[in-house]
């Protein structure tokens, strides 16, 4: 079974749940920005959670199916057209050879995930360019296909359906829960107040490594060089200029900026669906109680 990428859209890559075990050599974990949607797409297809899926940012992806193919598409950032007809998210879809999938603009979300039974062949992080041929080991079994209704246009959907996830709307403000970071106490009261009360906008200068945020400047009480420590996805670093950066999937392994907070892991998928221009507000996830371990206050 193979699929030809006609247009990769804004940015399309193959992703799984990341490459682990190599961070000590400076190799980032990577993997899907929205791991929850990637896993859902895989589960709809009966795959392992870690199977490779296509992650496509916003819209513009066009893929042509060279064979009969079963797919599940999750996430957001676009609407789906198959042979010009609207196709659903979060369901198994069967397309016949020669069909085309196209993603067109939507005002909700930022990234969609395309899975197929057996998973796509390749490596996590592979960039899909025009004329790239995607393939899968597995041919869809006729049993799996039997549950699927074939439409007049050459695609149909099965009865399997995953619950729809909340997607941030470009016109709304999305609340993201945070947990105070290891250097929270180094920031001024003004910075704490602004961080938890004022909106931030995801900057155009954001990518899979990190989201840069525009908004109030956040200042530390004393400027003091920090010793670099390991960092990971979700950590919110603040540069010397006072600009916050939320580290995302391709985050470097080590960082040296003060960490004001981290995004709760429950809200990381939601944040991954925010796009440049999206407005977000941070809400404190935990009440400020002394941490029971080693007298550390979180």
């Amino acid at each position, binding site marked *: 079974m193979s699929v030809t990428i006609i247009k990769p859209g804004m940015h399309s890559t193959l992703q799984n749940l990341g490459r682990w075990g190599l*961070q*000590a*050599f*400076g190799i980032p974990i990577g993997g899907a920005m929205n791991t929850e949607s990637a896993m859902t797409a895989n589960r709809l297809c009966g795959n392992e959670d870690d199977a490779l899926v296509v992650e496509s940012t916003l819209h513009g992806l066009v893929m042509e199916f060279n064979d009969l193919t079963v797919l599940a598409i999750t996430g957001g950032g676009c609407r789906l057209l198959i042979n010009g007809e609207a196709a659903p998210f979060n369901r198994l879809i069967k397309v016949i050879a020669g069909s085309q999938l196209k993603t067109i603009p939507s005002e909700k979300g930022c990234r969609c995930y395309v899975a197929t039974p057996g998973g796509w062949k390749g490596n996590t992080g592979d960039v899909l360019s025009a004329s790239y041929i995607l393939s899968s080991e597995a041919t869809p079994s006729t049993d799996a296909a039997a549950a699927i209704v074939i439409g007049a246009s050459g695609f149909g959907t099965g009865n399997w359906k995953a619950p729809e996830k909340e997607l941030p709307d470009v016109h709304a403000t999305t609340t993201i829960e945070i947990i105070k970071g290891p250097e929270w106490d180094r920031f001024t009261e003004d910075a704490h107040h602004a961080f938890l009360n004022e909106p931030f906008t995801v900057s155009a200068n954001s990518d899979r490594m990190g989201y840069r945020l525009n908004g109030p400047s956040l200042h530390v009480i004393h400027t003091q060089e920090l*010793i*670099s*420590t*390991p960092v990971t996805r979700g950590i919110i670093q603040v540069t010397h200029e006072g600009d916050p950066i939320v580290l995302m999937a391709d985050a*470097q392994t080590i960082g040296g900026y003060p960490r004001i907070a981290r995004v709760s892991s429950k809200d990381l998928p939601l944040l991954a669906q925010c796009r440049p221009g999206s407005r977000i507000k941070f809400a404190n996830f935990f009440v400020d109680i002394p941490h029971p371990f080693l007298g*550390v206050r979180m």
Partner: protein
Amino acid sequence: MHYPRIYPIHDYALTIEFSNLINEASHQQVMQLKREMEDNPFSGYVESVPAYSSLTVYFTAPATAERVMQEMQSRMKSSNTSAVHTASRKIEIPVCYDSSFAIDLEAVMESTGLDHEAIVQMHTANEFNVYMIGFLPGFAYMGTLPAALETARKKTPSTKIPPGSVAIAGKQTGIYPAASPGGWNVIGRTPVRMFDPERPPYSYLQAGDRVQFNPISLSAYESLL
């Protein structure tokens, strides 16, 4: 601040900070805990990442943050931090300090007051400890430089530093494994490939290695390429 300090940086990762200092004693503790985790991993252990004075332990189910926190505490209590000093790998790295490679030589001479020969002498006199790999895959943070060789980072980072560039900043020295923007002062270049995506474990150096720089001529550099 009390040390050691343990805190989560994600649901799947805890950091143990031994101090807020860059010194070999703290780093020894970091490396010792890392070895202990690797030699005797708990169920759900994934990997641990060393930094100057901290170790971050990544885990998955069935481990939970609470359990790993307890595990780390008991391991730190039971380990004899002063005794074990395992053998480090000793690695010699040839470096050509020719002025054609030493992009920031002028700036370094000006800020340190040292001449070219003295800079090379100081950079090659002693072994350096590899504290951690980060910033870029295979980028080794090494130290500690003699005080006389300390320089500030460049105010405006260079947009493209060539691969193999050997650079200094503050008390640290490092080698750029790939072409990259960077703010450190470049004083030479090595023909050694610091990162090879085809050959596990990919990074030429790892935390805990002892590195000795050896000065080589331009022609020796070319012959080693």
